[in-house]
């Protein structure tokens, strides 16, 4: 009895780890391609409007990187659409009637749109002409955003379920599609994630621009991309802090235990402190080695320094999320957000002084910031997903009761296979992307579309 209980617990843990691993790897690519698709659409639009060749160069430069990242996003995404069934069969059976149609709409409205026009975007310039090509790029960009809409609606429903009832088989059935789709946390989560994708991409573009500026500060392409990225940092990073705060207040209203874990608040208290550092201890329900600012958490969460803030003591212990993970993931995310805002402000200051393309310190910092957006995105997902535990659907279905009838050995073996394959394949992909990024954007090869078109192909066929 005890033994079978243990192996069951292991299977749940391994299944959770497998989902976390495959989804964390996957999110890296959409976070990048959502932003990059929009960036490419802007570049192509600006080129068509101004005919400034620098935009065309940048488009050709980044579209190759986009192609590699998008391919990796597609293959890691196919895995996700089957992960629900292999390891989370009970969840699929019960929640399928709600989340299934939403994901069905994602496939029908987004995935086909992206995939359908991607071919034209990557290979069709000499076949369709520049206006239709721009349309294809726009469709790919729109597709990535629509995809975010649906999948974040699904995730938000699991966090703040609404518009449903239960049937006699224990399945969730929808009573109002509008309420289910636009559930309470959805608008905040969607805005927060889209901004995160744009910011992450902006910092990658900024890092590549800065890298090439460090080698040649006169490079027009490097200047253009660095400047565009720093505008994004200056405007979007503060906006993200604002949206993140709204999202936090929404979470406090609907998932107070999650916020208590984020803050490390074990006890309900007025004038609640903000912990800058500390090691939350789940057993003793205390924060060890705490460095704190009294009253600041009350001020942030209730906008009143003396207000009472709900702690984990209001919830039974078996409904606590793992506090330390949520606490630290939250600090990593916020810390990176603050750094991004500071870089944005610094670049604005340098732009005013006329030193945007000269400040080596700024460029070096921007290079270092390049990968941090991805870290923040993953940390943010850890906050929201681990913070929801022990529930898979908040308050309604426990994660431990949602798992498939599979044993630990099978889940463990497939997990190992995923880890090896992902590191191998996506490691190679990252190398290819970095190699592309190391290439000088000034020397991007622009095929002479005016000369290649149908004529060349006709010639080719006549020859044979």
């Amino acid at each position: 009895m005890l033994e079978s209980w243990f192996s069951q617990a292991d299977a749940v843990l391994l299944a959770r780890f497998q989902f976390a691993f495959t989804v964390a790897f996957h999110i890296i690519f959409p976070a990048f391609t959502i932003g990059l698709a929009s960036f490419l659409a802007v570049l192509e639009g600006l080129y068509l409007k101004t005919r400034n060749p620098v935009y065309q160069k940048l488009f050709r430069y980044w579209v190759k990187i986009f192609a590699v990242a998008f391919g990796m996003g597609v293959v890691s995404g196919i895995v996700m659409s089957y992960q629900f069934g292999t390891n989370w069969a009970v969840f699929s059976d019960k929640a399928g009637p709600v989340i299934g149609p939403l994901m069905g709409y994602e496939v029908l409205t987004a995935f086909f749109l992206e995939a359908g026009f991607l071919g034209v975007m990557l290979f069709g310039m000499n076949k369709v002409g520049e206006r239709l090509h721009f349309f294809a790029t726009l469709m790919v960009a729109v597709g990535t955003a629509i995809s975010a809409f649906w999948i974040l609606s699904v995730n938000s429903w699991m966090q703040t379920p609404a518009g449903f009832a239960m049937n006699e088989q224990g399945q969730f059935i929808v009573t109002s599609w509008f309420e289910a789709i636009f559930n309470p946390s959805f608008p905040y989560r969607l805005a927060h994630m889209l901004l995160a994708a744009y910011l992450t991409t902006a910092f990658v573009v900024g890092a590549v621009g800065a890298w090439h500026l460090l080698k040649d500060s006169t490079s027009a392409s490097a200047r253009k991309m660095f400047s565009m990225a720093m505008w994004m940092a200056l405007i979007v990073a503060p906006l993200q802090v604002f949206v993140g705060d709204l999202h936090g207040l929404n979470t406090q209203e609907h998932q107070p235990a999650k916020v208590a874990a984020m803050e490390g608040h074990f006890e309900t208290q007025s004038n609640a402190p903000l912990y800058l550092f500390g090691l939350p201890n789940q057993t003793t329900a205390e924060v060890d080695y705490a460095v704190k600012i009294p009253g600041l958490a009350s001020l942030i969460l209730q906008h009143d320094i003396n207000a009472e803030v709900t702690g984990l003591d209001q919830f039974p212990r078996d409904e606590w999320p793992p506090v330390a993970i949520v606490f630290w993931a939250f600090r990593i995310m916020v810390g990176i957000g603050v750094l991004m805002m500071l870089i944005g402000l610094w670049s604005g200051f340098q732009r005013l002084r006329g030193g945007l393309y000269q400040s080596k310190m700024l460029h070096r910092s921007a290079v270092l910031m390049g990968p941090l957006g991805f870290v923040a995105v993953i940390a943010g997902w850890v906050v929201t997903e681990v913070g929801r535990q022990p529930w898979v659907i908040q308050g309604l279905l426990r994660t431990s009761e949602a798992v498939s009838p599979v044993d630990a050995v099978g889940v463990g073996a497939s997990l190992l296979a995923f880890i090896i394959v992902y590191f191998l394949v996506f490691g190679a992909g990252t190398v290819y992307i970095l190699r592309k990024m190391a290439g000088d954007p000034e020397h991007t090869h622009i095929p002479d579309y005016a000369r290649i078109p149908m004529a060349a192909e006709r010639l080719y066929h006549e020859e044979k």
Partner: protein
Amino acid sequence: MDYALIWAALISIAVFAYVALDGFDLGIGLLFPWFTNEQHRDRMVNTVAPVWDGNETWLVLGGGGLLAVFPLAYSVLLPALYMPVIAMLLGLIFRGVAFEFRFKSRNNKHWWDRSFMLGSAVAAFSQGVMLGAMLQGIDVTDRAYSGGWFDWLSPFTIFAGIAVCIGYMLLGATWLIMKTDGQLQGRSFSLARNLSLLMILAIAAASIYLVSTYGQVADRWLTWPTSAGLWLLPFALAIVGGGLLTALNKKREGAPYLWALGVFLIAFIGFAVSIFPYLIPFEITLWEAAGPDNSLSFLLVGAVILIPIIFAYTGYTYWVFRGKTSEDSGYHE
């Protein structure tokens, strides 16, 4: 309205669209060992580079659609087919990234060629195994899979895996006949001829074996009115197979691919008749597996409007890239 039945038809269309489209691009990976010339391989990959992504999206629709409208079937099938599903996913990863990587790699192109080849083979073989495992039947107790880890493994499922590989290679070869010329096309013609014969033999062998071994499948094929199909389908197979071989002999360029699709369609109908109305053979019918009506109707509205639009712009993409793929089109590095 019988939403479950409509959805069973729609998902069948999605699965067939997947087989028809991803079939040829998986087939091209499977055919790599017969084409060792570097330029030929580049050209083969370029014939599918603009479209493979959309082709695989049908697989996502199959998975997502099953979860949306037949959640019970999804939650039983995937644990039952756990290992072949994981193998298929890993195979698809290796071959999907190879499209990009083989042109980006400096010294390791041959490794990505192997990954393209093996990934395609593993994905196609796993799909065949899953098909075979469904025909064998799946154990269910209390809305959950109750069989073992290796129930999917049997001589029949291995045979089904090989048969699907042969079928995809046939689709790949006939696709190459349409999209290429010269030496590459000539080689595809001779491969397609052999593969056609193998494919027809495989379908015949599988049918005879199924009817003689598995009681449930045999029952439906030997009782009226389905027994009429016992005479109709082999007849249809003979006609379509003959059409395929004739088109190949006459060196037609477009027709062989369509005839090959016809062979697939007949096998597909045979499969559907063998298990209808079960979704999990022979435990759960499509009506038992269906989710609540309002989930089915909600997604149906979107499907009815969007699937024709998807066919339209997918068709447009194929039209943009119509005609022969020249050696230097596609990837420029």
